[in-house]
């Protein structure tokens, strides 16, 4: 079947998994202004931004021939859990014949999960499925390792934009890899390429580190968050995100008794400020800010879609964390009303602030 999926972050991974299982993958294009315009046109006006972008993405994928869309469901209470219902209704109304396969948490409705799994599995043997999963997981881990390196190197590159180009190249190399050996080779190649980037020599005490936290879609998808990581990197700041795909998988797939992921600790760190899960990544956001602060980061950029229900609760509480722990946080809310210059100014002012704070700390 001709399948597609929402575009988010390092998409080569979902593509690889579906290809391994013999499906025809229609890659949705990287979200562009056209995607956003399409999405905005057909989505409810007050829906959150990810819903709109994904809507546009689906339409572009359908245009390219997608028949089945695979997505995750979530279980609320944030709006993302209800996306598929709205998306499929609207697509149907617009005359697109497309089927949805929605993966909800397998711990909640195993029967449905299993049914979906069987669809994706198609004629492959379970061994093949397990092998493909392991392969893709391995790839995910390795890509995340490299990406973390990219986010550090970028701050010190001499030739602007070089690291980003290499990173895109690395993803292409991984896209060609189809077995364990090739993935290892791609990883080695990636490391080698990154080590060749010429860098400014910056003394450790002069290095600035900023964490990025917030709602998963706007954090993970650079094309809609003003390429925040590249932006911060080009301004000479090391970056670490709160979310990486492999972390997300570890945390969401492992059963409770063997779930010792960092995410679990992070959630505990935020408990003082928000004792229960309220949906989305609100609790993670607060926990991550505490975590970044304890790990000596200089500041945090908090990204959220405009009007995001859970993140607004976080945003209300963040000033108190800043007061308690002294970590500066800049909240940027993102939607289809692009105002790059305005946000750029805010980011620059924020960096001035943390630079000032940083130099005071070391002097």
């Amino acid at each position, binding site marked *: 079947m001709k399948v597609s999926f929402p575009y988010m972050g390092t998409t080569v991974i979902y593509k690889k998994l579906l290809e391994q299982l013999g499906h025809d993958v229609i890659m949705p294009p990287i979200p562009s202004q056209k995607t956003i315009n399409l999405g905005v046109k057909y989505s*409810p*006006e*007050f*829906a*959150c931004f990810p819903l709109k972008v994904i809507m546009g993405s689906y339409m572009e994928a359908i245009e390219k021939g997608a028949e089945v869309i695979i997505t995750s469901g979530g*279980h*609320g*209470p*944030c*709006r993302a*859990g*209800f996306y598929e*219902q*709205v998306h499929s*209704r*609207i697509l149907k*109304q617009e005359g697109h014949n497309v089927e949805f396969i929605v993966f909800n948490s397998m711990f909640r409705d195993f029967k449905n999960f299993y049914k979906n799994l069987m669809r994706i599995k198609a004629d492959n043997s379970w061994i093949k499925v397990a092998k493909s999963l392991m392969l893709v997981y391995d790839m995910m881990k390795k890509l995340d390792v490299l990406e973390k390196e990219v986010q550090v190197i970028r701050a010190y590159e001499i030739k602007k934009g070089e690291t980003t180009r290499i990173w895109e190249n690395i993803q292409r190399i991984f896209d060609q890899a189809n077995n364990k050996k090739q993935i290892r080779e791609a990883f080695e190649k990636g490391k080698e390429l990154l080590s060749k980037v010429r860098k400014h020599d910056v003394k450790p005490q002069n290095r600035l580190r900023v964490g990025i936290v917030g709602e998963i879609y706007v954090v993970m998808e650079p094309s809609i968050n003003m390429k925040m990581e590249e932006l911060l990197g080009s301004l000479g700041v090391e970056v670490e995100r709160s979310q990486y795909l492999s972390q997300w998988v570890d945390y969401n797939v492992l059963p409770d008794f063997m779930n010792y992921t960092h995410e679990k600790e992070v959630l505990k760190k935020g408990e003082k*400020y*928000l*004792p*229960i899960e*309220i*949906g*989305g990544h*609100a609790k993670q956001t607060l926990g991550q800010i505490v975590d970044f602060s304890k790990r000596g980061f200089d500041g945090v950029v908090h990204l959220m879609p*405009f*009007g*995001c*229900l*859970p993140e*607004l*609760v976080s*945003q*209300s*509480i963040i*000033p*108190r964390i800043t007061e308690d722990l002294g970590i500066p946080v800049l909240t940027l*809310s993102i939607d289809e009303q692009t105002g790059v210059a305005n946000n750029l100014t805010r980011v620059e002012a924020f960096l001035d602030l943390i630079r000032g704070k940083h130099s005071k700390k070391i002097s």
Partner: protein
Amino acid sequence: MKIGIPQSLLYAYYFPFWKTYFEELGHEVVVTPMTTKGIIDRGVKASVPEICVPIKIYLGHVITLLEEVDYIFVPRFVSIRKGQFFCPKFMGLPDMVRYTFKGIEEKLISPMIKTNSDNIGNTFSDYKFMEKMFGISSQKNIKALEKANEVWLRFREYSKKGYTITEAMKIVLDGYGESSFSTNSDSNSSVTIGLIGYVYNIYDSFISMDILNRLREMGVKVKTFEMLEEDSLEKELQRMNNKTMFWTFSDKLLAAGYSFYNNPEVDGLIHVTAFGCGPDSMLGKLLDMDTVEYNKPFMTVRVDEHTGENHLQTRIEAFIDMLKRRKMNMKRGA
């Protein structure tokens, strides 16, 4: 002790319960006045700009109570139905309050409400902590809860008879007679409207500009979700099988919407929604898409903290006129 209850958010649905409960425990209950411009302004100042109006207003009510009372009741509503939740802002409400206002922590009473039905007096364990907090016996606590429960159930019965929440509260709490209010049932109005909206919007006359009474004054019969039997809402939800939303009150509104669409007595639907309401952005769209299928007019009224009543009056007048004309044409067979 003086216990303050903000007249906002779920006040309209649960106040008879809360008031009875605290009074049975021997406390004095202080309620903020109806929302005013002053209350809104205070709330707007204390909140993050993007948050929805009802939350801003709630914070305004909390500030208003701060000086006056010993305790402020800010419950954490998590779930009142299996598999369903409240909007995230309700779930994080006590935390928002706690970290927005310095020194309020000792004043907060925040039970975590997690039950399996609307009847929040069902699970005594949610209120267990009050025994330690106020030094009362379990027996007294349970007795107070039972009494509160009884009053609340009576209040709900009056809602289902067609009295508005304001009227039902006056009947159960202030001893008004049933005949003091003319309910829907005895008006011979020409048009019936299904009014869809959360209780904290519809019954906050500042937010909704008192749309319910405006409609009634125009001789329109109004039905709201809380006037429907739980069974009939449940039936609508079952028909959608697992396609429901997972926010309790949004689901109720959605079910009410479809029940109004299916009810031949109802001529049209009005959806009152607050600017920035997340669940409503989905709920409204779904109902709006179905207006063609059910051949019933649907109108959205979006409200925020900025006032201006004239446009509302004009819009609802036009909507009602349209419904009347439509009805006449239908009768004539045109």
